[in-house]
């Protein structure tokens, strides 16, 4: 079943002050939609994971049309990414499955994880490698790989148990994930599935999400420490920067095509853009309290944030989009 409605309110706000020459727009979703994660397709259409209601949300920002697509009994999707096929792929903790929605037909396809010994892994986030395989994390302490063509699913224990959270692929196809509960960065051997742990300089920093820049460097949001971290696999070096404010809490993490680093800071109730060249943060505060942005993704010129706390999607558009 596919339910379509118009977005209740779409506000375009010009904010030339702290945000520089950028404009932003909020899309108010129905109360309780609680968008956990958001992903924007190359054509500009937007998908979000509606965790409480077990739905895929589909927004056309141009028209404001919003569609809810139920993902199945017991569904509770945590993450969403756009696959190389242009479709949204969900990490569905409720169904303990990887779920794809066909953007043209709304047909839902479900790949359940093998149930042996762990019926629910708290599926968290997914990413694609260059071979079209889906790599995913389960916060109960696993990571895994799905080959959508063959249907083969492999699941491995994460080092030290629970906490596997954000995951990313570098331009050359390497897969990395971070552990929130155990505060590390790990690289996965794509063939054997073995994980190698890399320790950030700050202990118990709470590495929550990770994203690669165009050079294959890993940027990490450190929730407990309120840092943005950087690991360069080429030089094997670390660097960390403290976010501004009294009690920063770094959650979402996305690196745009210009290699600007986007984060959400729950302490400041803001989206931040960090410029690695100048080492300066630029703040984009939310216009409502407790926005609670859990994840960001985007495309050239657009950074999208899911405001789970306000049932809204937010886009920040750069004045000079990168082509």
């Amino acid at each position: 079943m596919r339910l379509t409605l118009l977005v209740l309110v779409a506000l375009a706000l010009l904010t030339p002050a702290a945000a520089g020459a950028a404009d932003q727009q909020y899309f108010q979703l129905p109360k309780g939609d609680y968008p956990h994660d958001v992903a924007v397709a190359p054509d500009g259409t937007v998908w979000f994971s509606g965790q409480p209601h077990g739905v895929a949300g589909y927004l056309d920002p141009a028209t404001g049309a919003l569609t809810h697509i139920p993902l199945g009994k017991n569904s509770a999707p945590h993450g969403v990414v756009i696959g190389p096929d242009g479709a949204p792929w969900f990490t569905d903790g409720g169904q303990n499955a990887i779920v794809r929605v066909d953007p043209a037909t709304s047909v839902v396809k479900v790949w359940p994880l093998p149930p042996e010994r762990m019926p629910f892994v708290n599926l968290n986030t997914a990413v694609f490698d260059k071979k079209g395989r889906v790599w995913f994390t389960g916060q109960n302490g696993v990571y895994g790989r799905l080959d959508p063509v063959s249907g083969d699913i492999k699941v491995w224990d994460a080092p030290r148990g629970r906490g596997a959270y954000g995951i990313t692929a570098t331009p050359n196809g390497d897969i990395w994930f971070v552990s929130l509960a155990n505060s590390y960065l790990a690289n996965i051997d794509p063939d054997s599935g073995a994980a190698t742990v890399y320790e950030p300089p700050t202990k118990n920093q709470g590495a929550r999400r990770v994203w690669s820049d165009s050079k294959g460097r890993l940027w990490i949001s450190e929730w407990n420490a309120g840092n943005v971290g950087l690991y360069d696999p080429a030089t094997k070096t670390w660097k960390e920067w403290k976010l501004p404010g009294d009690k920063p809490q770094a959650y979402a993490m996305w690196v745009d095509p210009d290699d600007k680093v986007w984060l959400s800071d729950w302490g400041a109730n803001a989206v931040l853009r960090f410029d690695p060249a100048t080492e300066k943060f630029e703040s984009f505060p939310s216009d409502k309290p407790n926005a609670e942005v859990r994840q960001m993704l985007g495309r050239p010129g657009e950074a999208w944030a899911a405001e789970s706390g306000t049932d809204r999607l937010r886009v920040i558009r750069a004045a000079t989009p990168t082509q």
Partner: protein
Amino acid sequence: MIEQSWRHGLLDAYGEANCFARLKAGHDKGERNRGRQTQARIGLVAVLLLLTTLPCLAQEAGDAAHGERVFQYCFACHSVDPNEKAQLQGPSLTHIIGRPAASLKGFDYSDAMKQRGAAGLVWTAATLDTYIADPQSVVPGTRMAAVPVRDAKDRADLIAYLAKSGAWRP
């Protein structure tokens, strides 16, 4: 392949609660106080007695063994191990039954949870049942983004499992 390390936090670390003994102790305490306390005092004893016995009632209402499996929904962020060392995003659920909301010392609760705690929210089997099904309905603005446990039997079993650690001891 998955090994059984995840079970370390799930396996029951506690002995079976002696519900009958605690029920009787609570009853005896009520008897001793009868006639000597003000009405308000008796009311307080009644509340304490209720909080003491709730774990037993919850255990009777649900299948704790199955509840241990349901607890996997919670496992990423919560522990029932009193000696847990991992730095988890959710507070310990040891002795959760009868605990006032946002009262665990040292845990960084959200403002929303602190407000509900200050307003008198106590984690009973009933409030937990509603919260596990729909967290925002009990604590609007809670930061807990969990898989909602929609099945009433699953929730009862989960609460029975949580109750095995015994009631809240301030």
